[in-house]
């Protein structure tokens, strides 16, 4: 895409570019994503990861659905196999980073103040303060929020969205932008299903499919160690796939972003 030579003009959108306007004024076609600057930075972050063979995973969910507990269990399980690092995003406190460090894993806390999401620049600044040599997995725990984080590419390869059984099973229908962005959906705290009769994991999965999302829906309890093996296997597969892509000079963006780029037609 290019701003200067007009190659981003297609038969479908060129009528937008040459619209006659009043004298003394001129209309300019831009046709650029509004978050272009963030996306450029995200692309730069992704190159960083690819060069080092790192698989970057963005974890998103509502507050309290178990992102940090999942990370704790995951990091312990992968300890002998891989080197992991974590970026934590919260409005305030170092608490989550301290929980991760207690597991012997490098963690950097981003304190966003009042910002409701991480962006590519915040992640980039964090990367510069971390030791990334030899890291296999970088987990980015986004701010607990089912709305805003979905709109900002951080440079991650995969989005993982958590849905705990203490929430409604219709969350994917209520927050479609977020769940459409998921490369995997994790139904968490499944040990509580026995006492919660109003959450149906099958329904949650059906709502995800209604968003045209083929992502795997895994059910687990990090606290009780239930269903963790499927998640860990998925992680291993994704790392192998990422390494194979990098070996042939390719990378991966979270599914919907590349989809959008390829398919967008402008029709006014």
């Amino acid at each position, binding site marked *: 895409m290019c*701003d200067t030579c007009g190659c981003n003009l297609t038969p479908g959108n060129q009528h*937008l*570019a040459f*619209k006659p*306007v009043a004298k*003394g*004024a*001129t*209309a*300019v*076609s*831009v*046709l*650029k*994503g*509004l*978050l*272009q*600057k*963030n996306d450029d930075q995200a692309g730069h972050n992704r190159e960083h990861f690819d060069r080092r063979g790192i698989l970057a995973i963005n974890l998103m969910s509502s507050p309290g659905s178990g992102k940090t507990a999942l990370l704790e269990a995951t990091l312990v399980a992968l300890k002998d196999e891989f080197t992991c690092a974590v970026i934590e995003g919260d409005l305030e406190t170092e608490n989550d980073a301290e929980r991760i460090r207690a597991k012997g894993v490098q963690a950097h806390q981003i304190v966003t103040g009042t*910002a*409701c*999401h991480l*962006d590519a620049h915040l992640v980039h600044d964090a990367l510069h303060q971390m030791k990334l040599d030899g890291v296999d997995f970088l987990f980015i725990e986004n701010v607990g*929020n089912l*709305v*805003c984080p*979905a*709109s*900002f590419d951080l440079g991650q390869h995969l989005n993982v969205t958590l849905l705990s059984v203490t929430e409604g099973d219709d969350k*994917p*229908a*209520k927050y*479609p*932008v*977020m769940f*459409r962005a998921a490369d995997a959906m994790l139904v968490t705290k499944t040990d509580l299903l026995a006492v919660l009769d109003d959450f149906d994991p099958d329904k949650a999965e059906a*709502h995800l*499919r*209604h*968003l*045209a999302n*083929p992502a795997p829906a895994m059910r687990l309890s990090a606290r009780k160690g239930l269903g963790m093996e499927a998640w860990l296997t998925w992680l291993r597969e994704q790392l192998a796939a990422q390494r194979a892509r990098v070996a042939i000079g390719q990378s991966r963006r979270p599914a*919907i972003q590349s*989809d*959008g780029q390829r*398919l*967008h*037609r*402008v*029709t*006014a």
Partner: protein
Amino acid sequence: MHELAVAQALVEQVDSVIRQHNASSASLIRVRIGPLAGVVPELLASAFPLAAAGSRMEHAELDLVAAPIQVRCQTCGAETEAALNRLICGACGDWHTQVLSGDELLLESVELETAPSLIPES
């Protein structure tokens, strides 16, 4: 909540368009938003004046064009309109679809004032 961040990104982008074209200001900014972009047009409209205050687009009209959600079915090939949380094929009901439009967040065009301003800048 994040619409202010989006408005600030918009102001930055329009500002670079103004500079590229040696214009004095922007009079109209057209942005195309699909419901799947996760940005609420009304909130963006109210955040824009805050982000644009004191800039060369503070008097610009912000035209937010709504993009409909359209999906193409990978099973039957039909192109149909869909609802925000039901992106299934309108013809056969299959969920294996691709979103053709509806997730845009696009600065479509800008109208620039090229004539020198009569009011000197203070």
